[in-house]
C-alpha cells in the first residue's frame, strides 16, 4: 500500500523499508529486501523499519553484548523509528521483531524458518529488548550448524525488521508455481486460522488450494487439520496458541473471494519480481482490531523448487515429426 507508513529517515542504524533493494542485502538482509520489493510492487505491507547490520556490528564491537547495555545512539535511533511508526496510529504499536540475516535469502539457500521471530513487542523498551534477542539469535548454534551445512560461507551479519503486527484472521503461504512439480500454471495456497506461525512452524495441516492462474478456478481443494491457531493476546502484548473449535476446523480458512485476491497478488508480484515466488500473507487488520479485514503481503522470496517445469520442449520444429515420433512409441516430453 503506502510508503508513507514506512516513514522514518534512514540513518546508519535504521533504514526505511521501501528503500531496501537487492544492492542493500549486506546492510538490511534478505527479508528486508523482500519487504522492499513488496512495497515497490504496490502491495499492502504492515508498516516497518529496518535495524541495519551496522547496528549489530557496532553492538558486537562495543562489547556490550553480554552486559545487555545498548549504545545510546543505537537506542536513540531505534526509539525514534518506533515512535515514527506509532505516530500513524496515535497509540503504542504491537510489532513483530524478526532477524533479516544477510545470508539468509541467498540464492538457492532459503533459510526459511531458521531464524526465530518475536511477535507482540509493544513500547520502546520491549522493542529494543527484542532487537537485542534477535542479535543473540544470530549466534544460536542451531543457526550456525544450518549455515555450515548449506555452505553459504562464513558468518554473516544480521539486520532486524521491526514491523507492525497484523491481527490475522487467516494467514499462510502461497507459491506462484507448484513447489513439487514446478507447474507454472498453478498458484498453491496454504491457509489456516489466525497468525501464520502455525503454518510456517508446521504445527497444523493447513487448508490447501491449487488455483489455475489462467482460468482462476480452484483445481484442488483440501481441507486441512487446523487444530490450533495463534492469536495476539487481547492486550496486544503477546501471542497465544488456542485450540480451534471442531466446527471451525471444518470451515475453510479463506473464502473464494479471498482466494481471488491472493491470485491477484500472485500475478502482480510475478509481473514485478519474476516467476517462482514464495509469499507469506495474512488477512486481518492492523491498528484497531475493529477495522475491516485486508490482505497483507508479509514476505516474498524465490521459491525453493524440486525441478522447474516448462522444460519439456520438442526437439523438432515440425509438429508432424513430433506426432510421428509419439506414435512410434517415443515420449513427447523429453528432457528436464
Amino acid at each position, binding site marked *: 500500500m503506502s510508503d508513507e507508513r514506512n516513514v522514518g529517515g534512514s540513518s546508519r542504524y535504521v533504514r526505511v523499508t521501501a528503500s531496501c533493494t537487492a544492492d542493500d542485502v549486506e546492510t538490511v538482509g534478505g527479508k528486508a529486501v523482500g519487504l522492499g520489493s513488496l512495497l515497490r510492487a504496490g502491495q499492502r505491507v504492515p508498516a516497518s523499519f529496518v535495524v541495519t547490520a551496522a547496528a549489530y556490528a557496532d553492538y558486537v564491537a562495543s562489547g556490550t553484548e553480554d552486559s545487555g547495555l545498548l549504545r545510546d545512539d543505537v537506542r536513540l535511533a531505534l526509539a525514534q523509528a518506533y515512535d515514527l511508526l506509532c505516530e500513524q496510529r496515535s497509540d503504542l504499536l504491537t510489532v513483530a521483531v524478526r532477524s533479516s540475516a544477510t545470508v539468509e535469502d541467498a540464492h538457492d539457500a532459503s533459510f526459511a524458518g531458521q531464524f526465530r521471530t518475536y511477535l507482540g513487542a509493544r513500547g520502546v523498551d520491549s522493542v529494543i529488548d527484542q532487537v537485542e534477542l534477535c542479535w543473540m539469535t544470530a549466534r544460536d548454534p542451531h543457526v550456525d550448524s544450518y549455515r555450515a551445512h548449506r555452505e553459504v560461507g562464513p558468518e554473516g551479519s544480521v539486520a532486524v525488521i521491526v514491523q507492525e503486527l497484523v491481527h490475522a484472521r487467516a494467514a499462510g503461504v502461497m507459491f506462484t508455481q*507448484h513447489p513439487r*512439480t*514446478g*507447474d*507454472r*500454471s*498453478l498458484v498453491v495456497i496454504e491457509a489456516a486460522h489466525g497468525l501464520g506461525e502455525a503454518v510456517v512452524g508446521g504445527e497444523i495441516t493447513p487448508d490447501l488450494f*491449487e488455483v*489455475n*492462474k*489462467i*482460468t482462476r*478456478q*480452484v*483445481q*484442488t*481443494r483440501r481441507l486441512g487439520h487446523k487444530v490450533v491457531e495463534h492469536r495476539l493476546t487481547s492486550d496486544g502484548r503477546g501471542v497465544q496458541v488456542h485450540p480451534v473449535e471442531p466446527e471451525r476446523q471444518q470451515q475453510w480458512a479463506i473464502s473464494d473471494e479471498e482466494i481471488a485476491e491472493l491470485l491477484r497478488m500472485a500475478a502482480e508480484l510475478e509481473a514485478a519480481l519474476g516467476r517462482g515466488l514464495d509469499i507469506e500473507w495474512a488477512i486481518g487488520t492492523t491498528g484497531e482490531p475493529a477495522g475491516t479485514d485486508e490482505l497483507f503481503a508479509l514476505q516474498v522470496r524465490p521459491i525453493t523448487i524440486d525441478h522447474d*517445469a*516448462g*522444460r*519439456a*520442449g*520438442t526437439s523438432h*520444429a*515440425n*509438429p*508432424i515429426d*513430433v*506426432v*510421428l515420433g*509419439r*506414435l*512410434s*512409441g517415443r*515420449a*513427447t*516430453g523429453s528432457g528436464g
Partner: protein
Amino acid sequence: MAESGGRFTDPYDIATPEGADGWQSMYPSYLLFGDDLRERDRDKLWFFDQMHNPEPVYPFDLMMPESWLVSLNQYTTRIWNLPTALGIEQRIVNGYLYLSPNVIEDPAQIAEREPIFAERARHYFENWDTIYEDWVGKATDCIARLKAMHFEPLGVREPTETVTSARGITTAFDLLAGYSRLLENMHEMAYYHFEMLNLAYGAYLTFLEFCKTNFPAITDDLVARMVAGIDVILYRPDSELRRLAHRAVELGVGDVLKSPGSPDDVVSAMEASPEGKEWLADLESIKDPWFYYSTGAGYCHANRAWIDDMTPPFAAMRDYVARIERGEDLSRPLEHLQAERERIASGYRDLLDEEHRAGFDALLGLSRQVFPYVENHNFYVEHWHHSIFFNKARELGAVLVAAGMLERDDDIYFLHRYEVYSVLYEAEVRWSIGVPTSGEHTWRREIERRRRIYAALESWRPPPALGVPPEVVTEPITVTLFGINSDTINRWLAADGAGAAEEFHGLAASPGVVEGTARVVHRVEELDQLVDGEILVCPLTAPSWSIVFARIAAAVSDGGGIMSHAAIVSREYELPAVVATGIGTQLVKTGDRLRVDGDNGVVTFLSRAADSAESAG
C-alpha cells in the same frame, strides 16, 4: 470386482444371468471367449465399451462394432503400420461388448514398421485439408447411395417390365442383391469412419502429453478447450431447434409450438394458420440432414433419430419457447467461447519458456487442423449415415413381415446380418414355389427365444473390466478414443466393494462443485421424469440429450472421455461434470443426495435415498 494382485475377474469365470442360457448362440464364435484361447485371453485386459454400446448388442446391430473391428484395425495394423500397436480385439460377454488392445513390444518389429508408418502417415498429415475435403465428398456420396436404396415387398407376380424390358433377373434377385449392397455400404462407411481418426487422435494426444509434461496439473478439459472448434456441425441440430423456437415466437405461433401434445398434434395445429405453415416449411427445409440425429451413440437401432420420432426435438423446442418468453438469450455465446479458447491457449503459452513456445504453437496448430474431422465425422457417420442404415434395415424387416418370415419389422435386429441372408433366401424360396416353408416358423420361434434372452441380459450389470491390466496403458487409440489409461484402470481396481463407497471417481470433465438430488436415467425415454435442478446420473449421454442440460445441476456418466458429449455440453452450460466413473449408475439411486466435484472428478454421497423414495420417484 477387483481382486488382490491388481486383476479383474477372469472372463472365463463370468456366470450367465438367469434366463439368458444360450445367449452365445446370438453371436459369432469368433467374438466369444472360447476354450482355444483360454490361456491367452484370461491374462489380458478386457474393458467394457460402454461409450459406444452401453446396452447388450442386438445381433444385427453387431454390424456396427464388427465394422470397426475390421476397418479401424486394418488402418492400425495394415495401412498405417502403427509401430507400437496392432488391432483391438472384441469379445461379447453376456451380450455386452468388451475390447482388448494389442501392443507391439519387439524392438525389431517396431523398427521395421516405423519408416513405413512415417511415410504413410506423413502423406495424410501433409495433405490433411485436401484429403478432408475429399473425405466429406466420399462420406456424403456414400450417404446418398444409402438413401437411394429401397426394399419393397415382393408382389404377387413379377412386374410386366421384367418381361417387356427382357430383364432376365427378378425383383427377388434385387432384394438379395440390394441387401448385399446395404451391408457393403455400411462396411464402406466404416472405412471412412476410421480413415483419418487414428492420426487425428495421435496429433491430439501428442499435444495433450506436451501440455501435461509442461503443466502436470493441466486437466484434459482445458486441453480440449484449447483445441476444440466452437461452431462445429455436431451442435448444428440443437442450434437449429433454438433458431426454430425463435422463429415460432417471431411468427406468433410460439404458443402452438409450446402446446402440450404429440409432435403430430402440433404439426396439425400449425397447419391451421399461414404463419404456422411458414414455420412448418422452415422445419421441413432443415430436417435433411439435421434431424438425422440419433438419440444414442449411433450404434443401436433402438435409439431412433429425430427424423423417426420428433418427440425429443419438439420437447426441446417447447422448452426453448418458454425460455425465450422468460427473456432468456438462447444463442450459444460463440464469440465468448472463441475468446475464452484463445485466452486459455495464450495463457499457457505465455507460461512456457521462450524456446518452447514454438513447439507449443506447432502442436496446437496441428491439433486444431485435424480436429474438425474428429468433431464432424461423428455427425456424418454415427448420426446421419447410421440413422439411415438402421431405417433401411427396418424397411427390409417390413419386407420380411410381408413375406411371412417375421412378426414385426424390428424383429430383424434379433438376427445376425448373415442370418438375414438365410431368412431372405427362404422368403425367396417360398415366393418362388408359391407355398409356405417350415423355415418361417423356425425363425419366429428363434426370435421369441432371443427376445427373452435379451431381456435377461439387459438386467445384468457388466463390470468395467475383466482379466489382467498391463503395467501401463499407452496405446494411443485406447487412450484417446476409449479414454482408458492407467489412472482409469487404477480407479476401477480401487472400486472394489464399491457398494458401500462414500465416494467414487471419474474424469473431471467440467469444472465446478454442486450438491443436489440424483436422477438415474438409463434411456432417453426416461428423461421426462427428470425434475429441474437434479443431478443427471447416466450410463452416457448422446447429443440429443443436450435438451436436458439446461435443467440439470450437474452430470455424472459411467462412460465417456473428456471429449464425450456430456463433457462438452456441460462445459457449454457451465455445469460440473464427472465422466468415466465406470460404476456411477450402479452405485447411485434416484433420490440420493450427491456432491459432484467437477474440479477433481469426485462424486460424494451426502445421504442415501430411502428405498420408498425410489419407487415413489
